[in-house]
């Protein structure tokens, strides 16, 4: 009896030590990857501000035939920056690190304006048609993340549209504001649509299977909007008419900014 009790205690102690070591390893890995994301962010910031200074004429006028190339750099930098942000948040989500999400009262039109600016192509090639009312209720969101997520949805729509413009609309709904990104894409099965909102969807590559994913995928965006009390859904009609809908929770009057974990 004593022998078995000793065995059990020994096994329990070994398990506890193993769990503690694993926890420490994950913490260290999380810190390392977070540091890596910070280091990657620094050159992106440097290139980004140089491009923005070029475009705004801080360094003098740009020859018109060079403008579109610099605009393209800005667009690709926006994508790169978005992906680094998604990767960093994915690391926090998957390693259970503290993911500090702000919860501010934000005008959704500001989120839309900034996301369109990030995703728009050169000024002569705008393919986003926006239909946004002059006034909308304030919503509760982590503004910078929501801008990144909405611009990510626009990049997704641009990649998978079959023809036509990208349509961006916003409208109030009970307790929320609905922001929709619509485009004419390919008809894809409902099961694939649902699957594409899963966190690890880009890893589901199968033979003859086309991934409905750009960047780190819609799953990361959905996980992040849900952390903000919002939601992301995706519908595809049989004719390929596709809509990504962000449901942003209306801000409570008198609510104070907060950090959500």
């Amino acid at each position, binding site marked *: 009896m004593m022998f078995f009790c000793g065995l059990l205690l020994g096994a329990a102690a070994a398990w506890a030590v193993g769990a503690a070591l694993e926890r420490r390893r994950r913490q260290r890995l999380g810190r390392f990857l977070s540091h890596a994301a910070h280091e990657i962010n*620094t050159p992106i910031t440097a290139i980004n*501000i*140089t491009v923005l200074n070029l475009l705004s004429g801080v360094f003098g006028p740009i020859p018109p035939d060079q403008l579109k190339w610099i605009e393209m750099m800005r667009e690709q930098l926006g994508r790169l920056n978005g992906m680094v942000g998604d990767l*960093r948040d994915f690391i926090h989500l998957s390693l259970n690190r503290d993911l500090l999400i702000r919860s501010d009262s934000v005008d959704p039109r500001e989120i839309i304006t900034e996301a369109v600016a990030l995703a728009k192509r050169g000024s002569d090639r705008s393919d986003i048609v926006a239909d946004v009312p002059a006034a909308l209720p304030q919503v509760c969101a982590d503004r910078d993340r929501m801008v990144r997520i909405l611009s990510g949805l626009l990049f997704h729509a641009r990649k998978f549209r079959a023809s036509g413009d990208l349509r961006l609309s916003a409208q109030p709904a009970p307790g929320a504001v609905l922001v929709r990104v619509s485009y004419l894409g390919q008809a894809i099965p409902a099961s694939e649509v649902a699957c594409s909102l899963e966190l690890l969807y880009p890893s589901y590559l199968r033979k003859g299977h086309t991934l409905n994913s750009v960047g780190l995928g819609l799953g990361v965006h959905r996980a992040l909007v849900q952390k903000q009390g919002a939601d992301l859904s995706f519908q595809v009609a049989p004719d390929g008419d596709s809509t990504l809908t962000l449901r942003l929770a209306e801000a409570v009057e008198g609510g104070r900014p907060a950090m959500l974990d």
Partner: protein
Amino acid sequence: MAKKTLILIVEDDAVISENLKALMEARGFTAVCAADGAAGLVLARKNKPALVLLDIMLPKMDGFDVCRMLKTSPGTKDIRIIMITGLERMGDVEKAFASGADDYIIKPFDPVRMFKKIEKFVTPD
């Protein structure tokens, strides 16, 4: 000629600080740069800028310490301080306010939003 409003940029990445300086000057401010926390502290005490754009992760002395020292010293406590951080370090925002910062901006910079924050405190002359 009227003296222009001075902004001190404390940032260790030379490309970022030179671009910020050019951007501030195009807006009508004057700007000086420091590449580490200790140099930033010396320049702030010497030049008494109206505002400091202060990175957090700096060599020699981090941005929190620079901010705390400026805000607790009688000669520099009225200098406005905007801390610069990355979104992956949002926990730093709380620490920035605790060390006395007036506001923060997040990298990569959006110049429109950055000037909105700066011009809450100072305007170009």
